[in-house]
């Protein structure tokens, strides 16, 4: 192992410890929000592998998350009447955590298969084709109501396979039993969720890093930079592109599965078209082609949606009195604020968080050399 790699592993270990300790310093509810950040992080790694590294744009990753989420929900469900496919009634088939890899595999397979028609498309046309699956997926779910619960969705709250079920105290929201893992007492469902999501996120981050640092990653980047040059160097374009689609969709499927477990409820609107667009926004904010700075993208898309947009919107009258008395309670106002903030970020930091970090680093090394 090279020295630089050793440093990287060390930094990774430190980051893992920080992630491990974070819930000690934040409220239980914040832990749940950071669990969602972990989920988005996984999805962003997957999307970036396809879009940032391999150069295949996807506006449809919400659909792969949907497949993952519904795989988990259907395998865990105890709907009344039970969901049915080919005569098999799904009732409490599996425990939640065992459905996660299955959800990844199902989504990965669909992604791999989608990779074949996508071979014929590039650039804008690929973006449109992937956008089409994001648009169609919720409608398809509604069409097969007997299998998916239709528009009403699937409620996983009372399901037997749910870990952390009925151990929550009604008043304090602390568990009455809890569990000890590696000497750490996990007291609430939200904490359990946090550790579940981030353990998986760190493992999948490590896998992505290992995949991309060697020959495989080099090949994918070659496909991105010039398909012609890659092909003339002996790269099997079809193989690597479909593989990238499959791996990317696997990541999205795992993220979708975790989203279903975290929300304890799925319906077609859990995975709207906006989700696919938010994922792309997250990748761009994190930095196309980067890996760990995607955390910033994940933080951005989660907190921007639920909190920051409202706050930014409330601050607008102070910053821009020229707009006069605007109705900050108006429906859609947070979405407008979101758009404005996004434009400002892209103007200031076109390379996203990764680009910002790069320029900071070159700045410090330059001044360091000058000082010497």
């Amino acid at each position, binding site marked *: 192992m090279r020295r630089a790699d050793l440093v990287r592993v060390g930094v990774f270990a430190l980051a893992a410890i920080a992630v491990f300790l974070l819930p000690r310093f934040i*409220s*239980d*509810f914040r832990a*749940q929000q950071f669990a969602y950040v972990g989920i988005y992080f996984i999805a962003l790694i997957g999307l970036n592998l396809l879009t940032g590294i391999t150069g295949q744009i996807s506006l449809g990753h919400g659909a792969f998350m949907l497949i993952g989420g519904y795989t988990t929900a259907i395998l865990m469900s105890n709907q009344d009447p039970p969901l049915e496919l080919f005569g098999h009634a799904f009732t409490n088939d599996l425990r939640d955590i065992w459905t996660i890899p299955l959800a990844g595999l199902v989504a990965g397979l669909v992604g791999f298969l989608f990779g074949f028609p996508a071979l014929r498309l590039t650039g804008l046309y690929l973006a449109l084709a992937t956008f089409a699956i994001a648009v169609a997926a*919720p409608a398809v779910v*509604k069409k097969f109501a007997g299998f998916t619960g*239709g*528009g*009403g*969705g699937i*409620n996983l*709250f*009372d399901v037997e396979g749910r870990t952390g079920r*009925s151990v*929550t105290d*009604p*008043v*304090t*929201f602390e568990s009455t039993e809890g569990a000890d893992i590696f000497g750490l007492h996990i007291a609430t469902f*939200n904490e359990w969720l946090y550790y579940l999501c981030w353990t998986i996120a760190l493992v999948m981050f490590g896998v992505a890093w290992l995949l991309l640092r060697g020959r495989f990653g080099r090949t994918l980047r070659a496909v991105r930079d010039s398909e012609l040059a890659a092909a003339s160097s002996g790269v099997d374009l079809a193989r690597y592109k479909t593989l990238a689609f499959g791996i990317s969709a696997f990541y999205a499927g795992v993220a979708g599965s975790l989203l279903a477990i975290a*929300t*304890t*409820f*799925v*319906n*077609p*609107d*859990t995975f709207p078209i906006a989700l696919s667009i938010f994922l792309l926004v997250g990748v761009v904010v994190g930095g196309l082609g980067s890996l760990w700075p995607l955390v910033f993208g994940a933080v951005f898309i989660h907190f921007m949606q*639920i909190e920051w947009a409202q706050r930014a919107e409330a601050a607008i009258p102070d910053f821009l009195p020229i707009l006069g008395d605007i109705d900050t*309670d108006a*429906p*859609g106002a947070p979405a407008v604020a979101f758009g404005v903030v996004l434009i400002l970020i892209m103007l200031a930091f076109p390379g996203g968080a990764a680009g910002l970090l790069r320029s900071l680093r070159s700045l410090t090394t330059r001044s360091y050399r000058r000082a010497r």
Partner: protein
Amino acid sequence: MRTLRLALSLLLLAGAIATGATGSTSADPGITPKTILLGGTAPLSGTASAYASVARGANAYFRHVNSRGGVNGRTITYKFVDDAYNAVQTVQATKQLVEQDKVFAIFNSLGTEQNEAIRPYLNQAKVPQLFVASGATTFGHDFKQYPWTIGFQPSYRAEGWIYGKYLARAKPGAKIAVLFQNDAYGKDLLGGLKQGIARSKVKVVAAEPFEVTAPDVQSQIAKLKASGADTLALFATPRHAIQGYVFANRLKWRPLIINNAVSSASNIMTLASEGNTNQSVENSISIVFLKDPTDAKWRTDPAVKLYRSIMARHARGANAKDVYHVYGMAVAYETVAVLKAAGKNLTRASVMSQTRKLNDASNPFLLPGITVRTSATERFPIEQALLQRWSNGTWKSFGGLWGYRAG
């Protein structure tokens, strides 16, 4: 060694007593000597944003009560957040209200699927799901499984039943075509209608479902027209109900139209009339249980006057003609009554026990004669309504109160 163990166990015991003691004296979340915090979701944006007025009306009434000293010395804060009528957002927002904002109860959250999605969670956490803004039968019917949940408005089954009974009496031999939303709400109305016309000559000749997310209902209306029906029942929320009127008119179909109460607000009827060019709205039938502020009958009614003054003071800029504000005030009035009856020592359990013995004929925003009533075995607070007919741009109620009788 032995003394050490003894000392340790004593210490543990002391710790247990200490934590136990603090646990029993602390009040339920969301309650202080001066305040009560209620939370809920409302569709402030999205397809059902017409219902945002329900939350705004309730909030205006709470402000009015607060300005008069509150309930037993406590002021009420009602935090309502947008869920865009999307059940997933309802779940997330509700968890945030319960776990982060630590609300005392979830109040007046709107929508059938939305409330079904949060019901298991709230019941496990033993947080009251107070006066659900949905008439789906399950919220009153399944109280054994979900004791922390109670509805408010007439159940959709009761509403459908009233239409059925009315048609059996007023239009024997009617052939009904039904457009219904494909969920518990639409199916409850259809089921009630069929129950009401049982043993009569009235028949449902066609019933077409649509998904709540469907862009329009044009093809459904065309199929319903082809059935040869002379009566059309619109069991749909405002957007689709308006489309029902518009498409029926375009197809030059003039049935008697029954429009369910969730879409019968005057402003929605005015929209459906397309600037008085669509005559199909004329003579529509619906039920009413609130004092409609646009009905000339209530012009001098003290409750409607109070309503107008509260709107002017606490909901500035809102359209006071919108009857959903009245709904919000009616449900807020009942909540204040319940909180008052639960006394100074307010707990989640004491509030729920009050909702199981309602017997209140004094709610001024409801039609005279309507009693809000529940018991240990009966959890449908409002089961009475009047019929009303749309003519020349306003609703006019007619006949006496209809009271739903199951079976």
